[in-house]
């Protein structure tokens, strides 16, 4: 059986993951706010847009979302 602390941690993890995903959508809708977008990615983050290109790392992702 997971402890109460482990159960709460799991809920906090799920809530934070949902939160950053919603923030990402809001940064996109805020005229593709590139600084906001990259603040949500890991340093080695990857954005793969399919036919719209693949970008590795914060610098590349930042450039991709700059209008």
């Amino acid at each position, binding site marked *: 059986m997971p402890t109460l602390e482990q159960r709460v941690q799991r809920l906090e993890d799920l809530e934070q993951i949902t939160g*950053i*995903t919603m923030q990402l959508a809001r940064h996109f809708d805020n005229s*593709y706010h590139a600084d906001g977008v990259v603040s*949500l990615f*890991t340093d080695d983050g*990857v954005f*793969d847009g399919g*036919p*719209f290109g693949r970008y590795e790392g914060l610098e590349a992702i930042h450039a991709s979302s700059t209008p």
Partner: protein
Amino acid sequence: MTEQITFSKHHLATHAIHLAGNGTDATGQWYMWGTHTIGGEAMFLALTWDMHYRKTGGHWRISSQRLDWQFLTPYHSGWVKTPMAV
């Protein structure tokens, strides 16, 4: 593509998040419905965000985002006639 988008609304729904047992990795799938203006044209977008997350320094961050496209279609055409206007 982003320079051509003058208006966007990303709507996220029907998500599934899976936490790995190690406490620092997770995956997520989100349906995304978009109502955008692209190149001056009203567009409907339907895709799935295929996400990987990693916890670093106590914070969850996105380690990868992959767009799995279902359609990208002009409002006046529709996804049956024009599923992918790339």
